[in-house]
């Protein structure tokens, strides 16, 4: 062991070297954001809770009740009840998503042939009450305000 090594060992050189890195960051700008006060803005592809989109002109839902999203859903969290109107069209009676089962894979949005169900930027879904996790049709229509600005294909 050379003299330099002995001096290094005696003066705890490597600890000082490490502490210099620590000291550099003590005065620097913080990296985190303080969540409830400032919120992070998700990217346009972010998969938050679902929403049902309506036609902006007529106000009718895009959904045709084709049951594709219900079928592809890997966790089987979507329940659809549909009936037939007198003029032969399918109408959507109930559309329920059990959020406590949902895995946010985005398959429902991906297979939808009408751009009716979309994943939104809404990520604040915590609740004290389990009943809040059953998303009804009305909730999903209201959630459309959180939808991403442009509907992008995949």
């Amino acid at each position, binding site marked *: 062991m050379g003299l330099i090594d002995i001096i290094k*060992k005696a003066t705890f*050189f*490597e*600890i000082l*070297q*490490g502490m*210099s*890195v*620590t000291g550099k960051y003590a005065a620097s700008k913080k*990296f985190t954001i303080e969540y409830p006060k400032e919120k992070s803005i*998700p*990217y*346009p*592809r*972010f*998969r938050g809770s679902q929403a049902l989109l309506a036609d902006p002109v007529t106000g009718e839902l895009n959904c045709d009740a*084709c049951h*594709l999203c219900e*079928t*592809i859903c*890997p*966790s089987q969290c979507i329940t659809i009840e549909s009936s037939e109107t007198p003029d032969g069209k399918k109408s959507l009676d109930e559309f329920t998503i059990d959020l406590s089962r949902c*895995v*946010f*894979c*985005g*398959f429902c*949005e*991906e*297979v*939808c*042939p*009408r*751009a009716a169900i979309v*994943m939104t930027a809404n990520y604040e879904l915590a609740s004290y009450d389990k009943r809040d996790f059953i998303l009804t049709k009305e909730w999903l229509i209201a959630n459309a305000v959180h939808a991403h600005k442009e509907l992008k*294909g*995949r």
Partner: protein
Amino acid sequence: MSAPLEEKVEQRTRPTLEELKERKARNRQRVSDNAEVMTISMGPHHPSTHGVFRMDLDLDGEVIVDVRPEVGNLHRGMEKLAESKTYHQIIPLTDRLHYVVSFSQNEGYCEAVEKLMGIEVPERAKYIRSMCHEMCRIANHIIWLGFLVMDLGAITFQQITFREREYIMDLWEMLTGARLTHSFARIGGVAKDIPDGFREKMAAALEVIPKRMAEYDRLIRNNRIFLARGKDVGIFTSEDCAAWRVTGPTLRAAGCPRDLRKDEPFAAYDQLDFNVCVEYEADVIARYVLRMNEIYESIKIIKQCLDEMPDGPVIAEDAFHVIPPKKDVLRSSAAMIQDFVQVFRGPQVPKGEVYKAVETSQGELAFYIVSDGSPKPQRLRITTPCFYHCQAMQPLLQGEMLADIVGIFCGVDVCLGSCDR
């Protein structure tokens, strides 16, 4: 790009297998014949077991006489669950094996299914897959280092490494829409093309990460506590690795250049230029140096992928096996019919069996699928590297000191979600 670690590697001498064996024998304690063996249980809720893992330890004082690992506390029945889902629906399930390298698992599963169905993946999708694999590797190796150093006593270090991982997390969110469970690979390609502004953000991240890694180096590389707790601790030679089927960085740190990216190329790795990193000391420090070198190599691969990526579709045009892209479904009726058929009936699969292994950041991850011709697999067997790493705890820990358990356990990189499935 600076590579301070690579230079240091060149200067070191390479121990032979015999030297390593001798060093291993010297470092492991012998148990006296009249030892009083005490059995204690470590885990399943021990914070250093990275999940729920239990070990029965037979101790003679502070020396470990025997270890009986017990896995299965996190068993979720994934393989059985997969039998009741169509091939498309299994993709989100594979996310949940190991939550840091979700994409590698998506991709490994899709590779296996594509091999079974005989789908040709477009070139652009292959490059995106390779790029995502390397993003997984960077994120995993960085937080592995954080957890290792945290287990060895430096708590703040783990939070520093999470800061750098955040760059990769942001890129995941931008690319796939989720931060942990991406569900990004699809049978026949990937879900989406890379978005606008992704290249710039990636370039910025790849600029920052090497700088921060040089800082890690200054923080811990010469630290006497880190060296004392890592040097010659947990030596596991290439012979041991072969006997216990330990793959990945642990094997490469023992001097064996086994890497499926080179040996059995998948995704676009056969067209990319990269080196397989090898270390020869086979201890915890060697695993650390190897992983840091692999991050530099991954950065090189990502840059290559982004530069050489050809144009074209990101998912195969295959009416029998692939869910078509959404923009086609909205416009063409043929694609819409394909969409309905794929969802309601599932892909058309030939009968047969297929085995496909990919290299994730922990080791070889393999999927074995038995198909009976129906749209659901008859049997899906997932072979994860972590299961074999848990199995190797006994030869890894015998003769070591009690205090070194956490360092060795973290050193081989075990995730219990992946182990228990």
